[in-house]
């Protein structure tokens, strides 16, 4: 008699890798071939995961069409099946997969749109966190301000793309053909900040210098070091904007090396 472990591994191979011979040997015929019975479960599984991907990548889905999306998802699911039952977190590797997926090569901006959509999906599902109250910052003495390391809101994400993927994403989801036609794919790279606000998830285009400053602040670099890397930015105004938008939820002071 096969162990539970053996049965489950065999079915997993059948559903994911389509290697169903061992699994079929464990299953009663009962009027329908075991392979056909396994196929019912495989279909449900792929269907559920494709829906999860479609929910995270609605603009990609519209850009390539349902049939193409389903075909790409099927291959992606086989190579990168989910590692947990928390499907909100499934699909992080889909943009990289699309970047290397030759049938999609003619849509050069597709993986960029996918990267933006993953950041938006992450932002949508990020845990709730209260914004940093500015008055708490004054607890740190002025001499310590340079050592402040901010904790970013968990919904914050940064995207850099070679195409205007934010404009493409908006036009595609709005099904706005005129806006889509007006997009100049040669307009150069964009630097984007993604965040969940009270009103929903949003993407903002910012300058390259602002983007670099914000990514430094949000990746654990102390304030002074981030300022040193961004001369002439008008950092006071930019920082005030970050505070007003609730992009930080806490801070610590970097300890002297």
């Amino acid at each position, binding site marked *: *008699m*096969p*162990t*539970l*472990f053996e*049965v*489950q*591994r065999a*079915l*997993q191979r059948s*559903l*994911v890798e389509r290697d169903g011979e061992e699994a079929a040997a*464990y*299953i*009663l015929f*009962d*009027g*329908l071939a*075991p392979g*056909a*019975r*396994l196929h*019912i*479960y495989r279909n*449900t*599984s792929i269907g*559920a*995961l494709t829906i*999860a991907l479609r929910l995270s990548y609605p603009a990609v889905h519209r850009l390539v069409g349902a049939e193409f999306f389903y075909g790409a998802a099927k291959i992606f699911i086989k190579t990168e*099946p*989910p*590692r*947990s*039952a*928390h*499907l*909100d977190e499934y699909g992080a590797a889909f943009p990289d997969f699309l970047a290397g997926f030759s049938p999609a090569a003619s849509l050069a901006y597709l993986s960029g749109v996918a990267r933006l959509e993953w950041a938006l999906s992450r932002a*949508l*599902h*990020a*845990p*709730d*966190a209260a914004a940093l109250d500015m008055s708490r910052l004054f607890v740190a003495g002025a001499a310590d301000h340079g050592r402040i390391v901010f904790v970013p809101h*968990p*919904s914050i994400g940064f995207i850099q793309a070679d195409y205007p993927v934010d404009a493409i994403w908006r036009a595609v989801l709005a099904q706005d053909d005129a806006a889509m036609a007006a997009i100049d794919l040669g307009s150069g790279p964009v630097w984007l900040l993604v965040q*969940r606000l009270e009103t*929903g998830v949003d993407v903002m285009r910012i300058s390259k210098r602002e983007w670099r400053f914000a990514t430094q602040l949000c990746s654990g670099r102390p304030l002074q070091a981030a300022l040193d890397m961004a001369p002439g930015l008008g950092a006071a105004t930019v920082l005030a904007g970050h505070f007003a938008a609730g992009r930080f939820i806490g801070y610590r002071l970097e300890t002297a090396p």
Partner: protein
Amino acid sequence: MRAGRCAERAERGSILAGAGVGLRFRHHQAVIDSKPPLPWFEVHTENYMGGGAALRDLDAIRRDYAISLHGVGLSLGSAEGLDPDHLARILRVAERVEPALVSEHLSWSISGGVYLADLLPLPLTEEALATVCRHVDQTQNFLRRQILVENPSSYLRFRHSMIPEWEFLAALAVRTGCAILCDVNNIYVSAANHGWQASEYLAALPPSAIGEIHLAGHSVRQLDGGLTLRIDDHGSRVIPGVWQLYSDALSRFGPVATLIEWDTNVPPLEILLDEAARANSFLESARSGFAHADAV
């Protein structure tokens, strides 16, 4: 050790007095705005593991309604153990939502670290029973509450299964003190697919362990060679045969908190309320002790 848990069953007569419906995202706003006359909603636990609007909506809804958390991802039957991260996520949602009921499935979904996104059937063996019992114990201890375990719909059986599914479920309830979420549609579907007697299934379940009933629609697929397979797709109204089996279940179990599930091609909320009203008429009859023969 388990005696105290029996008292929790009394809740079904108060908080969960009538039929509830499965709540999906598309109905959040309609429920918040129109406050439909229902005592409770059931949600998929996995849909509320993050933050943002979904959880904020549920916070608003649970001010007016009891909530049941129905998990689809814990994989109680996995030979390789429960995912401690997933268990911790369920606890976090339960602490936030303070649900009236917490349920999961008699199935498995994870093997070799891969989540298969479906409720797969178990070989019904002593080994599988011991595994599920261990994991139900672990879950109940971790969540510090009783859980309900639901019978699945299935489309295959294993050659080496030794225990009828109804006996497996009854033994699970006795050994762990868990309650049974009796999905009447799933019994109907599995009985049709495998040639079981649905009445025998119901008769084997201990009435005192039944904490909730699920009702849903299913589809019928004609296969080559004249074979018919019923697929539990939760995409239509409850069929007459399932209402009849529900009536039989209530005759045996007494009035039990009942839920209308609808997950694919989700209709307007009014249709779900209509199905819930139908279930309520059966519950009323069960309460007054009259057999409900005319409604089907």
